[in-house]
């Protein structure tokens, strides 16, 4: 293998590149990214970078010198448009063709939005650094921000805007925020917590109309509420960025379908990060994980597989969300249909355990970091549910 192309200038891509070099690959490495920026860190974009205004240098995952030292050829501001896996060629949006011996797919996600009247203009979304710059400039104290979607991004944006002195309303279709994944009890905790910080939450809310109004946008809900917004942000989720692979030999099914060791259906093509769907043996579950920690570990693992490794990738997923002073960290997996045990619940902290098939599978900790480490070990060791839940 002489030449590896990595598509997507993402967190997973950077760790794939680093993994290639750390494991002795000294051939050519080409990194292709649709954005003009060097790969940067996204989690701060809804938190401190949104509050202060993003500074690219602080957000860069690696310095420009690092890419030079590692001998990485950068093709930034270029989108991959097609893959010919038979001839091992990636075609870029300027028509340029890149030949590869090995390919890493790490194109991440694109942000969904929702339909509305054409004359409202596009709704603000938050995925990229440029989105964050634009949103930061528009968050003015005293203004009214309406956020569509009470997922983690929506709730983080709401918290940040509140801390910046805006009035904030959040509109969510589900009766309780986060309930689809974390269940009603945990979701209710976040609802109460956000409300205690002055966020106006509309749950079980159906949007009837989004229309222009003088100086802003009028949002009408089915229950008769009318929200006069200076600014509307849509935080309604993301989808895997796999359009460029349609029609190629890479199998797709809500993401890139991979083996246990992250190989795709095409020879010498692996995938890492948000796009990757694979079977995680530890949880006996096919999963696709849109989380920071997974991108780091999966990028590195995919690189080792590309270099001939065959180890199964079976991590304990980890993610976090910071809202006001609640530092929520989660290990493992959860689903609203899991068994739930609230081990601790208070105004500013919580420990919730999730179980299925007789074992502990997930733990959510708010302001309780040591508990997190304890339960991660229990998940890895597949400790019986009855042993972690003391009746």
């Amino acid at each position, binding site marked *: 293998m002489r030449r590896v192309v990595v598509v997507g200038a993402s967190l997973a891509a950077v760790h794939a590149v680093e993994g290639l070099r750390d494991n002795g690959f000294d051939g050519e490495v080409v990194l292709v990214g649709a954005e003009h920026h060097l790969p940067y860190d996204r989690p701060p974009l809804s938190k401190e970078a949104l509050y202060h205004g993003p500074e690219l240098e602080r957000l860069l995952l690696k310095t420009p010198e690092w890419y030079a030292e590692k001998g990485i050829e950068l093709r930034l501001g270029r989108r991959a448009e097609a893959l010919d896996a038979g001839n091992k060629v990636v075609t870029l949006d300027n028509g340029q063709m890149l030949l590869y011996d090995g390919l890493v797919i790490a194109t991440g996600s694109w942000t969904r939005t929702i339909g509305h009247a054409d004359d409202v203009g596009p709704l603000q979304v938050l995925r990229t650094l440029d989105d964050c710059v634009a949103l930061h400039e528009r968050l003015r104290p005293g203004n009214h921000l309406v956020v569509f979607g009470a997922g983690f991004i929506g709730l983080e944006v709401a918290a940040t805007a509140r801390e910046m002195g805006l009035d904030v309303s959040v509109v969510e279709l589900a009766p309780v925020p986060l309930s689809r994944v974390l269940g009603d009890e945990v979701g209710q905790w976040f609802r109460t917590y956000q409300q205690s910080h002055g966020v106006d939450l509309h749950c079980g809310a159906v949007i009837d109309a989004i229309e222009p109004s003088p100086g802003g946008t009028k949002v009408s809900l089915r229950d008769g509420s009318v929200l006069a917004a200076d600014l509307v942000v849509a935080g309604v989720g993301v989808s895997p960025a796999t359009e460029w692979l349609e029609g190629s030999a890479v199998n797709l099914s809500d993401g890139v379908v991979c083996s246990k060791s992250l190989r795709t259906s095409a020879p010498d093509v692996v995938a890492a990060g948000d796009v990757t769907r694979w079977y995680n043996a530890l949880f006996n579950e096919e999963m696709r994980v849109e989380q920071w920690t997974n991108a780091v570990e999966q990028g590195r693992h995919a690189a080792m597989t590309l270099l001939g490794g065959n180890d199964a990738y079976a991590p304990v997923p980890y993610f976090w969300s*910071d809202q006001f002073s609640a530092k929520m960290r989660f290990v493992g997996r959860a689903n609203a249909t899991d068994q739930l045990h609230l081990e601790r619940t208070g105004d500013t902290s919580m420990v919730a355990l999730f179980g299925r098939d007789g074992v502990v599978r997930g733990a959510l900790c708010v302001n309780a970091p040591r508990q997190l480490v304890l339960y991660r070990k229990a998940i890895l060791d597949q400790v019986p549910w009855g042993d972690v839940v003391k009746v």
Partner: protein
Amino acid sequence: MSMKVTVDLDACQGYACCMMEAPTVFDLDESAGQAILLQENPADDLRTQVEAAARACPSRAIVVENG
């Protein structure tokens, strides 16, 4: 070759990833919600764990140097 580990406590947000990767090198102060460095110069057989901890830190608060 030994190594020197430092943790930037201004950056640390208590993600606990360091303690998950290298529990004999990092602990957590539950009340402060921050990492505690247990060994500044861990033995070389901990290098893989310590480097994994540095990579896993979402705040990029951990620096591992030779020395």
